[in-house]
């Protein structure tokens, strides 16, 4: 009999370990649900305190987006962009790179997609694909700049990406207000893209009005699966995971950490570029000022909620945009403003990023079991 010391996990047998893992997963899931309920409850109290009718507001907010088909379309269109942006930061996050550059990458992608889709005559299928490829490449290039600065020169990636955002937004504004502005139009926007370049709207497929939702949704789903496969099933994904977990270990194991960091930025940038292409080719059909709104930063929240797992990012993105869409409808139909949605989102973000809660719960369960044993 050996009595050499063991950790709690070493002492478990395989079946027990799997039970523990299943239990932990169950705790995680129910905590996610509890988090949402807690956030809604706090929103409820805030509305009550400000003299509104919370029941009616919630009814509108939670059922509104599914009310009519074009509202569903509005939700899915928003979710597509948001999820792509969440995916774009999830990859550098996996390499433990705090990239905040989705905004600059998105605008670079939008400009590239628009330039090709407006000015370059192409045959039918290529007219859709070439602008998207151009957008992905432009976004990737925009990601490579801070990536290289971090990996080769040791620049702080947070500062580098934020500065690039500032520059990219100004350049974009200048181009939309100047050289690319549609001549003779009083409103500020570019010329519309060629018809062949547009992403097919879902309305055409389903024969019901779906607003501006388009096949970009499918593209987003494919991207998410592809990124999940990249992370879990390729050597590069392995390198990204190890670099993010312990860069010293990765370097010790022979992984070229600077190159991995660059790749994570490039891949993230390409995905953000696709989000730009989706806005140009699928949503607006042209360049408009402030195309992305605040979506780039909400993408970061989505990635955090999903703990940077590409498949979970899709779920988080759909959920988050649902709240956004519901909030808009609530504002239109009741006296409650979208601010309440911001409150709910903030509470969720706080609870989720404070990981202490589920861990505490798991530990308590573990302790109780030890006590019983």
């Amino acid at each position: 009999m050996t009595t050499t010391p063991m950790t709690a996990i070493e002492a478990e047998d395989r079946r027990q370990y799997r039970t523990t893992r299943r239990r932990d997963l169950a705790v995680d899931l129910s905590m996610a649900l509890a988090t949402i309920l807690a956030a809604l409850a706090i929103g409820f109290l805030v509305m009550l305190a400000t003299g509104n009718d919370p029941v009616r507001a919630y009814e509108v907010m939670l059922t509104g987006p599914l009310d009519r088909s074009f509202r569903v379309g509005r939700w899915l269109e928003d979710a597509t962009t948001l999820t792509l942006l969440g995916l774009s930061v999830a990859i550098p996050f996996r390499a433990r790179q705090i990239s905040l550059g989705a905004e600059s990458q998105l605008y670079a992608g939008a400009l590239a997609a628009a330039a090709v889709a407006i000015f370059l005559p192409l045959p039918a299928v290529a007219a859709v694909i070439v602008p998207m490829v151009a957008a992905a490449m432009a976004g990737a290039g925009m990601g490579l700049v801070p990536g290289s600065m971090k990996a080769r020169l040791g620049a702080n990636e947070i500062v580098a990406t934020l500065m690039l955002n500032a520059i990219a937004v100004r350049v974009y504004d200048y181009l939309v207000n100047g050289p690319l502005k549609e001549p003779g139009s009083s409103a500020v926007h570019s010329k519309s893209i060629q018809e062949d370049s547009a992403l097919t709207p879902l309305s055409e497929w389903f024969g019901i009005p779906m607003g501006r939702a388009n096949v970009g949704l499918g593209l987003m789903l494919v991207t998410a699966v592809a990124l999940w496969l990249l992370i879990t099933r390729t050597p590069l994904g392995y390198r990204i995971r190890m670099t993010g977990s312990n860069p010293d270990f990765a370097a010790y194991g022979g992984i070229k950490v600077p190159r991995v960091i660059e790749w994570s930025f490039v891949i993230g940038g390409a995905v953000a570029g696709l989000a730009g292409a989706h806005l140009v080719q699928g949503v607006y059909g042209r360049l408009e000022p402030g195309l992305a709104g605040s979506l780039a930063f909400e993408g970061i929240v989505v990635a955090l909620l999903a703990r940077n797992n590409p498949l979970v990012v899709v779920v988080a993105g759909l959920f988050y945009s649902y709240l956004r869409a519901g909030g808009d409808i609530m504002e239109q139909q009741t006296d409650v403003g979208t601010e309440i949605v911001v409150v709910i989102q903030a509470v969720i973000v706080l609870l989720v990023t404070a990981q202490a809660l589920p861990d505490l719960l798991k530990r308590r369960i573990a302790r109780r079991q030890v006590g019983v044993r």
Partner: protein
Amino acid sequence: MNEPWGKDGPALAARAVTKTYANGVRAVRGVDLEVPPGEIRAVVGENGAGKSTLMKLFYGLEQPSSGTILIGGRPRTLRGPASAIALGVGMVHQNLMLVPSFTVAQNVVLGVEPGRRGLVDPKAAVETTARLAAEAGLSVDPRARVDEVSVGMRQRAEILKALHRQAKVLILDEPTAVLTPQETEDLFAAVRRLRDGGMTVLFISHKLREVREISDQVSVMRAGSLVGTVATADATERSLASMMVGRDLSLDVDRSPARTAQVTLRVRNLGYEAPVGQSLHGLDFDVAAGEIVGVAGIEGNGQSELAEILAGLRRPTEGTVHVGGTDTAGLDVAGHRRAGIGYVPEDRLHNGAALDESIADNLVVDRHDRPPLARRGILHPNAVRAHAERLIEEYAIRTPDPSVPVRALSGGNMQKVIVARELSAGPRLLIASQVTRGVDVGAMRFMYEQLIAARDAGAAVLLFSADLTELLALSDWLLVLREGRLVGRFDDTTGLTEKRVGLYMLGVEEHDRAHLTTGLGLTGTGTGEASTA
């Protein structure tokens, strides 16, 4: 709370003390321990046996889940180290806790400075320190800055600090781990003198030979419980080891003479300019296939730098390194690994593992991009898992599943993961740094066997260790490194004493260059004849 010590009764005692950590690990189980005043009590046990936790309970760093701690014969509730110190308990930690930029005297009086109205009287501080040092027989230079003195002197300063605070109980946590044999002897002399002056000393160690030398009684812990307390005079190293692991266990290394072949590692005029840390100067040595070469030295004399250069983590500034004919000096880490170099790093938590990743992922960092794990750019999770299951079986890694994160493993088990990875690559040259640091006796024995098996299978092994006993037991021959230079070379370790090696480590003696480079053929192309001793 601050009642004086009782007239009689134990200086330190635990009554049915149990400590369960928040994660459910019960580190200490129902321990009853009594230490009478004026005794040197050794507490031994494997890693994770609970001795550190028990000490933390005595020092107020942790609070018992149940049971009572007695200090000076009375039950006490310790809210933190401050209340333990107030009761006369001092602790010298394994990682010394001093302010590096302060002088020794400033550190000793820190917190209880002599002087008036918030002004420190530096002269009085120096005088106090010198007086305490003379009384205790611990030689220190009160005016020297802590970051400029040796580890041994820092440790003496820590003890003086406790004395300055009127400690009646002194807890020494693995105090000899960082000392040379000579410094250890001085420490023991001082500890005995303190004991004769009425001090109660708790001495934590896993070096049984030292325990036998210094202590009056030995308490043995295993798996959180106190197995027993025996008078040191009645105990042998073997009987203590058996008590520690709960079965008969020999720590003797069974090692046949090395059968060396051609030179595997050839280092010539190796120099390294370190931005921080120790630089290396003009190192020349060979390691042949089929032998274990030990590198001795006080920690921080260039061992880490040398190991990392050979593993490719640092670039030498001059000189050449050849491994099996490949010039590795200009290659990156991957190139070094391709040349057949395996490396067990000295700090496994720093770069030996990705703690939050699975065992399976940790086992493939050097081979994740080639068959059988990856084919045509696709990494196969099933292959990674099968690979892990094979190594878990082969190296007796204790885990319920390959998907367990490495963080959940104990020190010895974690080290097995690293050793399994490095050895399963079939290295031509294995660089092993501090392989047994922080691992339990069972795993230690396993590591020894693995190193010797690798040697017998034809690997050249370069072994770095702070534990001289281990180096002497495992090495076929030995090099001594001091201040980045080779200062000693012992072509045969049989009959070599730790004390003799210690003289070279300290710089009291030194081999001349002719002896150090015998047989290296520095003028011609000779091979490492000397290495076979």
